[in-house]
């Protein structure tokens, strides 16, 4: 990424802008949780806002926006695939094994 004083000064303004966005998104997350959209929809909206906030942190604070190294993008791509599998598989199995087995003794 660029490293001159002028570039860094521009980045500093961007950091403050991202802070404002993160702050507003946190308020939005709380506000949306009080609106009854149905449990599934509430979860989806909260996770979409959280993903947006996480993207801002990763792109700006972690400098991914300026990162050109392929090895980082390959690592992150593989991570994203593995993470997606970890999130999707339990949702798919929600109404069958192993969830029903796990909760047969719930309570």
């Amino acid at each position, binding site marked *: 990424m660029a490293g001159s004083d002028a570039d860094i000064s521009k980045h500093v303004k961007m950091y403050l802008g991202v802070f404002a966005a993160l702050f507003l998104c946190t308020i939005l997350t*709380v506000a949306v949780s009080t609106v009854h959209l149905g449990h599934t929809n509430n979860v989806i909206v909260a996770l979409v806002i959280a993903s947006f906030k996480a993207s801002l942190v990763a792109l700006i604070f972690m400098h991914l926006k300026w990162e050109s190294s392929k090895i980082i993008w390959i690592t992150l791509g593989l991570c994203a695939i593995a993470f997606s599998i970890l999130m999707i598989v339990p949702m798919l199995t929600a109404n069958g094994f192993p969830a029903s087995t796990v909760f047969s003794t719930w309570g």
Partner: protein
Amino acid sequence: MSAGVLPYTVEPHPVTGLYSGKLGTWLFLASEVMLFGGLFSAYILLRVGAPEGTWPTHEEAHLSWKIGGFNTLLLIISSVTMVMAWANLKMNNFPKARMYLIVTVILASLFLTLKISLEYYPHWHDGLKPSTNVFFGLYYTLTALHGLHIFGGIVVMLYFIGPGAGLWKTNPEYYTNRIECTGLYWHFVDLVWIFLFPILYLMN
């Protein structure tokens, strides 16, 4: 390059295009994604599979969104101060960078203090322990693991504020890179909390 000196601490490696510390940090963070990913996966499995009425409600969970929200704010501000520390090092302003690092440590310590004094302690006192039910088992596992990461970050930052700061005088670029790596880790810790907050505090 003399024997015993780590290579590529400042200049990028010709193959990866990264200095070694940054590559190592990103690979470490990839393993962290898998660690927290496994726990998030367990949470989703148990949450969506819970029969109606068995998952604790807001009241039963005893988690205040106000405390969680305030802690979220603390971590977001600490991410800003962390990146400002790096930016000031890039602009050769070490005293200001150090000041931002100190503020980051204070915010992180405040986060842990609030977490322990306003949540863990009263919960434990009320008999809400990891063994109470599945929710509290996951809650304590996720938040305590995250808390340990916060504590680890504080230790690393204190090192760079104190004894590790001498590197700035001998090799400022190396020091700046080390702060960038610390920052990458710290932003990741913030990132994990960004997901933990709505999942634990707002979705019951």
